[in-house]
């Protein structure tokens, strides 16, 4: 299985390459990708250098152009596709059918992967994208159980990439509009759930408070782990009870499921976190490289090592890691 690692800047890309990534995914410095954060991502010059660095070491580079353009911004998405093709990346990760169609026309030789934001959860949906846009890979949303995943992998006309590690959210991928409710922006169109300009952290006698556009998202007591200030991970008062009304801050960690994922034919494992630093990319890539190699050598005898799990746990959002939907009996 290919290890696909995140990079929000050049040192992170080099870190991923140096620590054993099979591919690195990156984005331009604008709202054409779902990590449109202040100062994050690549200029064309940096991308050029990153691609050169990765290719020289046999590592592939994918570019995410995976937000949904609105009419006024369309030329930016068009240009992004052409810039990516011109830079010689190995694949485009896209979700919007307009972007995919444009890529087919203007850069037919550039491989296309269907982004997680495309939210294709059945072989039928994947077949549609394959037939119309000749996608070479699909990144599945984090909502399928292992049983469902097995079916999709079996029937999919293209290789399947799944998420292996990283922060989880409410996972209405490609369709989530929650944050628009308080900020007027959504990750699908603006590339960010909680724009930094709308976020305020404040230390109060009651604890650390996070606010999004003035709305109290959470209040962390002493010693409580903090989380990203997104609406879906907030604690709210519902019918007199305060708690996580939508989703608890947690991280996905599928290390223990590796033999099963390999056996069912998953082609690639994706690591979340383009917003994280080169230190995170190095720590996580190193662990996953070692685990994938160990699993390939002896799938039956594979057990996640405690020191691997400790590293992954230490960098996780939320106090716990879970198998996400993979181990859910209900859907």
């Amino acid at each position, binding site marked *: 299985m290919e290890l696909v690692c995140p990079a*929000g800047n050049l040192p992170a890309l080099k870190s991923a390459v140096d620590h054993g990534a099979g591919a690195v995914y990156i984005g331009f410095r604008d709202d054409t990708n779902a990590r449109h954060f*202040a100062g994050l991502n690549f200029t064309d010059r940096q991308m050029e250098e990153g691609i050169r660095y990765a290719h020289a070491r046999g590592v592939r580079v994918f570019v995410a152009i995976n937000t949904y353009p609105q009419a006024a911004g369309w030329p930016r998405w068009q240009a992004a596709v052409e810039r990516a093709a011109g830079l010689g990346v190995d694949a485009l990760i896209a979700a919007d059918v307009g972007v995919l169609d444009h890529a087919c026309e203007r850069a037919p030789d550039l491989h296309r992967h269907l982004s997680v934001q495309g939210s294709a959860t059945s072989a039928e949906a994947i077949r549609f994208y394959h037939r119309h846009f000749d996608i070479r890979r699909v990144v599945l949303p984090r909502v399928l159980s292992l049983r469902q995943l097995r079916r999709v992998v079996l029937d999919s006309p293209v290789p399947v990439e799944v998420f292996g590690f990283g922060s989880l959210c409410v996972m209405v991928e490609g369709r989530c509009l929650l944050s628009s409710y308080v900020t007027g922006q959504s990750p699908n169109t603006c590339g960010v759930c909680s724009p*930094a*300009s709308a976020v305020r*952290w404040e230390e109060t006698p009651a604890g650390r408070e996070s606010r999004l556009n003035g709305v109290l998202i959470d209040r962390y007591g002493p*010693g409580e*782990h903090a989380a990203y200030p997104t609406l879906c991970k907030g604690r709210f008062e519902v019918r007199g009870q305060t708690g996580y009304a939508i989703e608890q801050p947690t991280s996905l960690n599928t290390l223990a499921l590796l033999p099963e994922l390999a056996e069912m034919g998953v082609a690639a494992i994706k690591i979340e976190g383009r917003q994280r630093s080169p*230190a995170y990319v190095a720590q996580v890539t190193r662990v996953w490289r070692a685990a994938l190699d160990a699993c390939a050598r002896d799938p039956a005898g594979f057990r996640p090592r405690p020191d691997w799990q400790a590293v992954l746990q230490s960098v996780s959002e*939320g106090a716990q890691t879970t198998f996400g939907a993979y181990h859910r009996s209900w859907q």
Partner: protein
Amino acid sequence: MASFRGVDREKRGRGSPGLPPSAVPFFLFGALLSRRFARAIAGGELDFLRDRILRVVLQPPGFAFDVTLREGQLRVAAPGGHAGGKREPRGQRRGERWDLRITGGVRDFLRLATRLEDADTLFFQRRLKMEGDTELGLYLKNFLDAQEEAEQALTRFAEDKLRGAVMLLERFENGTRLSRR
């Protein structure tokens, strides 16, 4: 005027024009930072800090300093030592002007500076505190993350050594912790 750890009191006492002796370490630190990030400053990458005040608080011991970008140089001063800053936060003493305040332990700042730790990790674990303008904080974090090795051989050497020292210290501490078990 802010009064932090007597720095300002000392400054006031001497009342000499120009650079008071207590400001010399800050001045040198600023010059060092300006040199380290000279290319980034020239390229406008640090413009987000222009006339904005970043306050760094080392807790413990509660030592603090302010950083800003002015006239193409990174300038460091004792708290309240820079003019400007847009924010007058609620609940702060009068005259406490900063746009972004980051509080953390010396060890964690060292781990961040030597790229051994991820800022979000420290933040999740409550080891790093960020108040004020979050966007400014994100610019700062992403600017630092995007920095490649220093161009000057001496700076690169010093940063390498510092990273080695932090790692060695941690290995030593882990060793003693294990042997105590």
